[in-house]
């Protein structure tokens, strides 16, 4: 379970990027955070990963404080960035093997890696090809394979569908649903309102560092998420 309590972040230049954020993501739940550029979505993910320290508040993953025990907390976290960059001279399988071994899983066979790459729909011939010529979509698929292989209880995704073609984005959404069914707590940031409505169990809207709205899937079925989002963005 992912829990955020009273989280604030003020940068050195005085900009308040996060203002008292409180949030919980339960196992088997997809929480989707919407917001304009600079709203604080990625800052939240960066604090969860201990890339930057919070000014106030705390993030706990499975009861472990992310800033006090950053190495321990990584055991319970998987991360997929907006633009997955891998080692260009390594093949897809070698990249997957390296990041899986960093997560502490050493006894994985080559067949298991191949099975995982098949699961994320990477073309078979690309398994042993160097990734430097991969498209963004293919790299993103390897990134998802890394998340799957780590099998952590909490998954963080920073705009995972950004720049993907419609088929790639649809495949990703299907994989997210599979991960949810496997009882993972998933926190994802996105600009894609339409897909968010499709796969999220709860949707939050961030504006200027504050979480201004949270609605469940049931609530959203009765409302127009796009209109709500635009109303919040236009409001002073």
């Amino acid at each position, binding site marked *: 379970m992912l829990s955020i309590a009273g989280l604030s972040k003020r940068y050195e230049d005085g900009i308040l990027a996060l203002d008292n954020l409180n949030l919980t993501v339960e196992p088997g739940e997809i929480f989707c955070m919407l917001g304009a550029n600079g709203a604080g979505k990625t800052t939240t993910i960066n604090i969860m*990963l*201990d890339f930057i320290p919070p000014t106030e508040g705390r993030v706990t993953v499975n009861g472990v404080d992310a800033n006090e025990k950053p190495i321990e907390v990584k055991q319970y976290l998987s991360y997929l960035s907006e633009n*997955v*960059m891998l080692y260009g001279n390594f093949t897809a399988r070698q990249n997957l093997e390296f990041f899986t071994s*960093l997560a502490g899983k050493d006894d994985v066979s080559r067949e298991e890696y191949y099975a995982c790459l098949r699961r994320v729909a990477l073309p078979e011939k690309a398994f042993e090809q160097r990734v430097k010529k991969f498209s963004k979509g293919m790299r993103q698929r390897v*990134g998802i394979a*890394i998340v799957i292989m780590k099998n952590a209880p909490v998954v*963080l995704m920073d705009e995972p569908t950004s720049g993907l073609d419609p088929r790639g984005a649809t495949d990703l959404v299907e994989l997210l649903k599979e991960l949810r069914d496997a009882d993972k707590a998933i926190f994802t940031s996105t600009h894609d309102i339409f897909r968010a409505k499709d796969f999220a169990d709860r949707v939050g809207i961030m504006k200027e560092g504050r979480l201004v709205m949270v609605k469940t899937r049931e609530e959203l079925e009765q409302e127009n998420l796009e209109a709500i989002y635009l109303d919040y963005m236009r409001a002073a």
Partner: protein
Amino acid sequence: MIWKIARKEIAEHLLSFRFSLAAMLCAGVLLLSCLGMYRQYEQRNRDYTLCQARQGEALANIPPTLLSLFAWGLEDVTGRTVDLRYAPHVMVLGVRPPLNPFDTFFPTFDLSYVVRIIGALVALSFAFDAICREGSNGTLALMLAAGASRGGILLGKLAGGFSVVALLFLFPVFLGLALLGILFSIPLTMEVLARILLWSGASLLYLFCFFCLGLLISAFFTTPRLSLLVCLMFWTMLIFIAPSAVTSVAHVETRLQSPVRFAQENLFSSKLAASQGRSNQEEGDRQLQKREARSHEMLRFTDLTLKVLRLLPGAAYVDLSTNLAGTGVAEMASYYSAMQRYIGAVIAAREQKEEAPSFSFTRSPLGDCLHSSIVAIVSLMAWAVAALWSAGVALFHYDVRTKEVGQL
């Protein structure tokens, strides 16, 4: 964790174009240096045999050392043949063959030169983007998110990257030696082997300094291009500019009279003494005192220059490698005292109308060479530790966020 990252680093480097280029450069240059320096050694060895003194001949003949292949140093001074028939006037016979004027223009192409110049550049080229490249393309964030610690990443990169640099240097050097051994049957005694191994260790320590410096710069800057530029600046500064600047400053600071001026003053002083009716003995003593004071002053400035130079990694490495090869400053001092003793013995024998004694000079034992190199070893270690520690601090504060997020 460290081993996993090191293994990844090794594999990544071995697959890179940079490695192929560096391997060709290092192998070519080091093998060329081995063979070229061996040819010089062989020629000087033949000259030494030709110049062997006959019974009663006043000739100081020192055999060249095989280790000059590794560090030429002051071999021109300590490894030569000197004719002392007209002592105290001396005639140097055995200088470096062939008598090529370009030897003066360009430094000797020994293995230490290759390590000092090209080795440092290769070490920097394998480290300059170790952190910032991964930082700017996002793999550093991915590694940290996967569970790697910053310390583990630094040590893994150090172990992996430096193993590749060490391989690039040690393989051609030992291959070159093996080739020389097979082709020319060079005599490798235990002492020579021990010195070669210690020289290899000293070279690795020097390369380690530059690798750590490269890591520090790569953890300090966010883009590989900027990091490369700064690395090249440091390389130029530490290898070429700083040592020359130190010796130039020492020249400026040395307010010693020139040898011509000194001789002129002595001549004037002698004439004045004669006109004032002072005894030759009295004037001789006075001039001797002046000469001693001048020598003392010269030694003081040489010592000061050496002390300052040893603080620079390039100069510390030169000091260490030449001392290990027996061609360093420590060897020069014992050579000069042996020569002074021999000149005295030759003059005394001539006055007694006896045959000139035979010249004997033993190169300093390895223990003494190491003892003279302690400051250089400590200096190199201090550079490595300071650079590595600073790289750790810089990486600890490194912003792994992607560019877009950093602009928030």
